[in-house]
């Protein structure tokens, strides 16, 4: 029992890292910032779901999906459809030509609820749909691609094209999806107002718990035999195939898991922000989420969360004060990280953590000489972590 638990969190170091992240999310941030900023952090943390899914898929599986926005969007739209239907009951929408359907449908001369909206009238079905539809969609894409041994850049390009198709489709079918504005004015879940401060706190904590849960699930997957196979597949796919494993099934499985985790993030996004729009589905958000993951470290589940928070914090600060500089900075950051720090923040941290350990050993032997070397390194390490 104890051994499997330690395997789950990844030993002593993994447990400390996870505890630090949990402390930051559950204690430091709620105490340190007001509810407006906390809501913003909550929004960023929903992107972290996608970054975590990319660590599984890209860092460990070597499968770069430039279409994770698809699954984030499917999850987000699922939740948004449920909340929209609840917001448009016949009494509040009685001024419409057809009461009881969402307002944008009425504006587009639609007189009946489309068939695919019906399941979203019930919360259990909605939650089921949020988890199952993205996974099924991922299964379909993965089955078609991986069974034919399509991988690498081809997979990246095709997922990108699918993200583009989906976003054009949502924008184009205004009457069915809300078009470019997305689905807006979402207020309640089963009569519970999500816009009050207390609801925001509760949603923030639910989001945090789900995020830690996703990280634990991912750790569990990565620490199992399957995780080893995933790494082996990334590095020498042919060899794994010749050892008798069905590589494509593993790839499909991890793609489905990643899709599910992203979809949970999308649903939490809708709950906390109160709307969903096609601008979170297309190519640009999908690639941005890859940046979050790359900055945090494509091999580190916890690093991906820090990367997401850091990049988004930078985006908020810079786009408020120097909007012109931000794209330069973002592009530059991306180029630098990819070229010089392929393992992101986590890679930098590990490099310096090892150095410090080495120096500590060294300073035990010669305490007076090494004493002034250690602190500067510690400062660097703290800088890297922040």
């Amino acid at each position: 029992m104890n051994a499997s638990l330690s395997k789950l969190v990844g030993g002593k170091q993994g447990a400390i890292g996870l505890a630090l992240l949990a402390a930051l999310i559950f204690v430091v941030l709620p105490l340190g910032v007001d509810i407006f900023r906390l809501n913003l952090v909550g929004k960023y943390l929903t992107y972290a779901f996608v970054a975590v899914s990319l660590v599984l898929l890209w860092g460990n599986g070597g499968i770069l999906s430039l279409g994770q926005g698809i699954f984030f969007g499917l999850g987000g739209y699922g939740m948004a459809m449920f909340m929209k239907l609840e917001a448009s009951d016949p009494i509040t929408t009685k001024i419409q030509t057809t009461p009881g359907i969402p307002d944008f449908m009425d504006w587009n001369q639609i007189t009946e609820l489309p068939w695919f909206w019906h399941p979203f009238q019930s919360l259990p079905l909605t939650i089921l749909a949020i988890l199952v539809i993205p996974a099924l969609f991922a299964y379909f894409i993965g089955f078609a691609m991986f069974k034919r041994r399509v991988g690498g850049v081809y997979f990246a390009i095709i997922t990108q094209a699918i993200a583009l198709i989906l976003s054009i489709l949502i924008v184009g079918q205004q009457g069915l999806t809300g078009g470019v504005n997305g689905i807006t004015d979402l207020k309640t879940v089963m009569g519970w107002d999500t816009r009050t401060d207390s609801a925001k706190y509760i949603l923030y904590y639910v989001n945090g718990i789900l995020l830690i849960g996703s990280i634990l699930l991912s750790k569990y997957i990565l620490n199992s035999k399957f995780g080893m196979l995933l790494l082996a597949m990334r590095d020498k796919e042919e060899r794994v195939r010749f050892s008798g494993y069905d590589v494509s099934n593993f790839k499909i499985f991890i793609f489905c898991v990643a899709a599910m985790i992203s979809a949970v993030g999308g649903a939490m996004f809708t709950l906390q922000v109160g709307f969903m729009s096609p601008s979170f589905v297309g190519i640009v958000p999908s690639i941005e989420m890859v940046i979050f993951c790359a900055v945090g470290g494509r091999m580190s589940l916890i690093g991906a969360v820090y990367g997401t928070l850091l990049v988004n914090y930078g985006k908020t600060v810079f786009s408020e004060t120097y909007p012109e500089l931000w794209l330069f900075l973002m592009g530059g950051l991306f180029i630098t990280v990819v070229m010089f720090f392929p393992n992101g923040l986590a890679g930098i941290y590990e490099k310096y953590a090892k150095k410090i350990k080495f120096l500590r050993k060294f300073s035990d032997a010669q305490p007076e000489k090494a004493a002034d070397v250690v602190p500067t390194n510690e400062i660097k390490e703290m800088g890297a972590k922040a």
Partner: protein
Amino acid sequence: MFGYSMGDIGNIMIMQGFSGLSMFTVLLLMALGLAIIFGQMGVINMAHGEFMTIGAYTTVMLSKVAATYGFVNYYFLIAIVLAFILAFALGYFVEFIMIRHLYKRPLDTLLATWGLSLVMQQAFRSSFGAKEMSAELPEWMLGSFKPTPDIDIPINGVFVMVLALLVTAGVYIFMYRSRWGLRVRATVQNRVMAGAVGINTKKVDRVTFALGCGIAGVAGAAFTTIASTGPTTGTLYIVDSFMVVVFGGAASLMGTIASAFGIAQAQSILQFFMTSSMGKVTTLLVIVGILMMKPEGLFASKLRK
């Protein structure tokens, strides 16, 4: 069919077909550059659209200069050459500082060049403003000719098409009939052996990449004749041109031409009968569907991997 008579359908087909041809030229030129870079070197250049935008801005700026000094009638030819040179030079530089360090990590090139495209977009916005600009076309390019009263074919469309055909022929000669092309193909087939027989493979890489970017610049010059240029113009075509390259089968010149033609025509004709977004969605869906069944593309050479 859709409430049109057969004669109308014929005319619509021809005219939409022709407007599809302008799109075909831009797509073809974009895809040619990409196909050279991706097909020959395996590098995904996400900033390719921005190299096209460089060409487009060059043409627009030159047209403004031409309007003040009065050589509007033939500035366009200079613009094409200048667009090529500028995009080529920048491509050469980018390969030197960035791409060459990433050849062993193709997925990372994709991400790094996307970062580059962000930087370039912002650079365009800062230097030319966020507003779209259009070039002043020379008089001989305006207007249209009418083979029958119902059919209207714009001359600028014909001009860019001729341009695209010339560039394609040029690329063909360069790749398959010149010493340089021989070296490029040798490097692609076996890098180590090519190096052993005295080919400077690093230089080949750099020139190949720069050439692809230069052709994107020409695509930009052609683009100004059909639409106006803004900082994010390049992003409009990037996915389409990737689709063209993958669909046609990378490293196949004929495949690139055929798939650029097919995709542009399908979009143009479908957009007339459906809404513009549904036309695009249908085309892309069909391509993705075909690619899922035939991932190596339509015209890929049969290779054992």
